[in-house]
């Protein structure tokens, strides 16, 4: 049996469907565990991707990872594989479950197991990859989002609502600050990012316009967040966050290796830069040699025309 734990308190993301698809392809029966008050009809849709059953624990809300770890372990006796997403929840829960069950963890898997059962992960901030072998009987995997395409193969599945109380870790949540952008950067499929080439914070209007025309999230290079032109949560790269969107548009960013470390997992990279020697062009799929202040408004208009004709 493959057990999948999903954090569903903020709705069902595409990566949840990816996780269930991945689990199904491991070959065994798939049982999904989740906590909180997600609507049962929504949870039932996980059946379409191959889940046999969803068990939702209404007695815990999923925000206490220690509590979740205990609950997952309670259900893991017959599991050969235990799957998490390599997201905020998975990064905190999977290592605990690994220690508790003495089962090897493959953190940040980007593909299904190979013939020899090793699993591919990215290492050296995306500059290389490795294949991890698990030596224990049980195997724990945390899957990086955007690694597998969700496949609808069936209809809804039954949802079992349980009330299993578990001792809490003692962590009290005092408040939650919602991010300013509409689309959280780590999950965004389209990202518009800008660097020092924009000259000053007052010039970000053209970036915001392009992002909203595309329905993209915004990001920036480190110096830009360090000087305070943009908020820290937009900083991508080796010391910020790593993202893997389908499309990354880099505007006025030179493409230093530390910046690339955070974005080189993107499927398609577009670079707009005035310097034909900018290193970013070497990592790009499409390049535009030109001044952002002329090119970006033009690109925004082109995107709007395209959307109108869709």
């Amino acid at each position, binding site marked *: 049996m493959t057990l999948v734990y999903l954090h569903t308190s903020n709705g069902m993301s595409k990566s949840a469907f990816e996780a269930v698809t991945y689990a199904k392809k491991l070959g065994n029966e798939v049982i999904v565990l989740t906590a909180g008050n997600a609507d049962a009809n929504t949870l039932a849709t996980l059946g379409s991707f191959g889940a046999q059953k969803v068990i939702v624990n209404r007695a815990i809300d999923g925000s206490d990872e220690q509590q979740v770890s205990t609950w997952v372990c309670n259900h893991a006796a017959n599991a050969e594989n235990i799957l998490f997403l390599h997201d905020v929840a998975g990064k905190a829960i999977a290592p605990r479950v690994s220690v508790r069950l003495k089962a090897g963890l493959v953190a940040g898997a980007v593909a299904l197991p190979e013939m020899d059962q090793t699993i591919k992960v990215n290492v050296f901030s995306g500059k290389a*990859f490795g294949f991890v072998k698990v030596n224990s009987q049980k195997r724990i995997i945390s899957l990086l989002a955007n690694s597998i395409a969700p496949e609808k193969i069936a209809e809804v599945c039954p949802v079992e609502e349980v009330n299993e109380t578990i001792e809490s870790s003692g962590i009290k949540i*005092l408040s939650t600050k919602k991010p300013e952008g509409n689309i959280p950067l780590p999950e965004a499929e389209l990202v518009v990012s800008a660097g020092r080439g924009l000259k000053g914070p007052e010039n970000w209007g053209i970036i915001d316009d392009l992002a909203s025309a595309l329905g993209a999230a915004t990001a920036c290079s480190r110096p830009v967040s360090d000087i305070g032109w943009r908020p820290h949560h937009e900083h991508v790269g080796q*010391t910020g966050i790593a993202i893997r969107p389908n499309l990354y548009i880099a505007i006025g960013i030179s493409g230093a290796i530390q910046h690339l470390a955070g974005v080189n997992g993107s499927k398609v990279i577009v670079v707009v830069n005035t310097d034909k020697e900018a290193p970013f062009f070497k990592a790009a799929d499409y390049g*535009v040699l030109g001044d952002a202040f002329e090119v970006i408004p033009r690109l925004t208009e082109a995107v709007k025309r395209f959307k109108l004709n869709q």
Partner: protein
Amino acid sequence: MKTLVCISKAPDTTSKIAFTNNNTAFDEAGVQYIVNPYDEWYALVRALEIKESVGGEVTIVTVGPNEDDAIMRKALAIGADKAVRIDANPKDAYFVATQIATYAKTIGFDMVLTGKETINYNGSQVAGMIAESLGFPLISLASKLDVEGTTLTLEREAANGVEVVSVNAPIVVSCAKGMAEQRIPNMRGIMAARTKPLEVIPPAACDDLTTFATFGSPLAKSEVKMIDPNNMDELVALLHNEAKVI
């Protein structure tokens, strides 16, 4: 606060990433090691700031061979009080976490801080594994940490934004950007680091849960396609028809 900060070495970011022994091991030839930036800039510096404001002691620990003493001296120069090196090659995250937790149990710490990940293996596993081994709560991906008595107030990344949480020590915290600013060691720090205690202890027995079987390097990107800056409709058409991302 009696604080333990976990330190890992990491190749300097400009290092060439290559593998040897039939692609089963990282090629260290010519590689310059630095203190993993998340451990140094965020975990260690915040631990020092807390010590400076409420008192206590900051110990740093690493799991690694002889050569790693150089990295520990660098971290001592930034201001830690003493260093411990567990004398073994770090096999995987479980091995590292088991060694650190075993040591931490013998001493008893109020806080164990790690960086959110290392820039070489990017696993984000060690903090959670230490927390489980010690039976402590974990605050993962924290960007702020304040101490009042034995109560800690932290901000951490959550699925729906940033959560402000409070918890009592002892805890484990994995530290991300926002925690502190980088500190450059001064001459006095570097001199003092030479005489600070650096204890070397043997590793504890530990199961081998995972192994890196092989490594590889990504295929080179195909040549970039340059688009006329006056023809953004063409770019949009390519993104739609060829790249299929919009």
